[in-house]
């Protein structure tokens, strides 16, 4: 029995006693479940497993607290109307917002945050962490921490640009198809069918093999691959709006197609489109990360999360987790966006559990 084990169980006991005393039923159940899980894992896996459970719980608790604090902060600075919406946000959504906010800061202020340059060789290959390098050096002796910070800007920026391109292409085609109808609608629908029946990664690889991996090619390729999904949604949403009486009235007034799209249809279909943008971003981000992992994304020496994982993968076979940090950063952002999208979908559909 080490001191850690005794301390851990004492903490759990005190916490459950407090929960019981203040009549917090859900908290008590939660802590009780945690105690049971710790018992079982502690018996099976020993102190190591117990330590793992404790760290995981502590991380979760910290994440929850950060999310709560961030939500309160947002409520405090937002306008009255926004604050009302934010109050309904679950903790997961607040956590998502916090993560997105952090990434945005890291991306925008990368040169100020990163201690070293993006492609600056400052040490020997795979040098271990020291006081100047938080996470050590990569295969060419560049600071991994700085490259991760710069990678935020490059990876997220590229995915964002590609998503915006896909969105503009798809939404424009969808809106036009819904308002014009007829052969244009049919043609667009068939084109979307064909593109969607090719697996996205395969299609991207095909285009990259022909035009070579460069940033404009990646953006165009992703736009072509993901536009059909946006097209379908926009077409469906706008299709429901187009049949409304006020559209008919606007048409009789003699308004043009562009006015109809901009002033009548778009304002009435923003909610699902914004949620779709978030989802689409996740897909695009994962695809672009996959491409750069395969060495076909942003080309070196520009820092990029996907290629960083690949370049330093040899470290994993020595039990070092540093190469996994960029991959975890990708996963964290995708999860965060998904949390926020979940909340927005829930809000816009007016679903109550």
């Amino acid at each position, binding site marked *: 029995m080490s001191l850690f084990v005794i301390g851990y169980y004492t903490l759990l006991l005190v916490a459950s006693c407090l929960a019981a005393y203040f009549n917090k039923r859900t908290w008590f159940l939660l802590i009780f479940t945690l105690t049971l899980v710790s018992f079982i894992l502690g018996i099976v896996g020993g102190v190591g497993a117990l330590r793992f459970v404790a760290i995981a719980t502590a991380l979760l608790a910290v994440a929850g607290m950060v999310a709560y604090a961030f939500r309160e902060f947002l409520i405090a600075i937002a306008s009255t109307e926004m604050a009302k919406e934010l109050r309904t946000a679950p903790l997961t959504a607040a956590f998502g917002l916090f993560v997105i906010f952090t990434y945005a800061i890291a991306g925008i202020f990368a040169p100020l945050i990163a201690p070293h340059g993006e492609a600056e060789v400052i040490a020997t290959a795979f040098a271990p962490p020291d006081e100047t390098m938080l996470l050590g050096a990569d295969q060419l002796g560049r600071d991994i921490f700085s490259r991760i910070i710069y990678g935020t800007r490059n990876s997220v920026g590229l995915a964002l640009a590609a998503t915006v391109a896909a969105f503009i292409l798809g939404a424009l085609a969808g809106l036009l198809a819904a308002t014009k109808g007829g052969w244009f609608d049919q043609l667009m629908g068939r084109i979307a069918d064909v593109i969607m029946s090719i697996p996205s*990664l395969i299609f991207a690889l095909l285009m990259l093999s022909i035009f070579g991996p460069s940033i404009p090619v990646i953006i165009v390729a992703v736009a072509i691959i993901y536009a059909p999904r946006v097209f379908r949604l926009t077409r469906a949403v706008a299709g429901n709006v187009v049949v409304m009486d006020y559209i008919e009235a606007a048409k009789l007034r003699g308004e043009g197609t562009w006015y109809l799209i901009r002033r009548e249809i778009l304002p009435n279909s923003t909610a699902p489109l914004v949620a779709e943008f978030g989802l689409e971003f996740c897909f695009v981000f994962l695809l672009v990360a996959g491409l750069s992992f395969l060495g076909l994304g942003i080309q070196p020496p520009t820092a990029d999360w996907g290629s960083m994982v690949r370049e330093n993968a040899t470290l994993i076979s020595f039990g070092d987790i540093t190469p996994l940090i960029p991959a975890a950063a990708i996963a964290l952002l995708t999860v965060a966006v998904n949390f926020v999208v979940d909340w927005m979908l829930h809000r816009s559909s007016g679903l109550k559990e």
Partner: protein
Amino acid sequence: MGDILGLIGKRLGLGLVILLVISIIIFFMVELLPGDIAQAVLGQGATEENLAALRKEMGLDKPAIVRYLEWLGGAVTFDFGNSIVTDERVTSIIGERFRNTLFLATYAAVIAVPLAITLGILVALLRYTVFDRVANVLTLTSISSPEFFLGYILILYFSVNWGMFPAISSLSQDMGFWELLHRTFLPALTLVLVVTAHMMRMTRAAIINLLASPYIEMARLKGTPPWKVIVRHALPNAWAPIINVVALNLAYLITGVVLVEVVFVYPGIGQALVDAVSKRDFPVVQACCLIFAATFILLNLAADVGAILTNPRLRHPK
């Protein structure tokens, strides 16, 4: 019966048309190349005579339509010409690897499908409980992680720290079946994690959708025991969405397999495709893309046909 066969025939026809269009896209996209294949192979510094000779050798002096028809004719009989990098037959590069990839996908599917459907139904029955919420967060995390992240985490724990499974799936001919399963366990597990998460979420949504329908409420109100509500009333109508979910996710496996093969250096078709893309070996790229697209369409077709077979309303369209 003739009715159903007609419907399925129609779907098959549609699938074939789409496949034809895709083959046109795959073939003519290479034509969009600035310059042409010969230029890309020899580089900017090639002399005019060399270019002309290579064009002649590759048949590039013929019009594009003729070459397309020849290529398509070859593709139907699995003859995709020669690689422009190694000059090997494309079929000999891909053939063995295609079988390996199919093996890996099947391995993953055999584990993932029963697991995902059972868990999905369980989560749907326990919806809105703590269990459901935990499952929701876990599956979301699994979906949001890039495949290579999951793959490397598995390598870190199962092969580096605990030494249970090999990190690199090197296959050889004389391996026993169990040895094969052991060697390929980690790539299969990576695919299982991703696909199970997708499938669980879709199954859960489908079942919850079903359980909200009025006839289930009716069955409950008349006092049918819960297990009977599920088995007799819900399940017959649940087959259609479940079959759909399975087929769609198997199609998803096709894309996921590329990244996983690269992580585990698995000798499959995905690895071949990635190699060919970076070497700009167009015949191999075209062949791999066509095979992937065909498999993808076939599985989507299977989803459609499954839906038709299990849903009487689709069997008798108005």
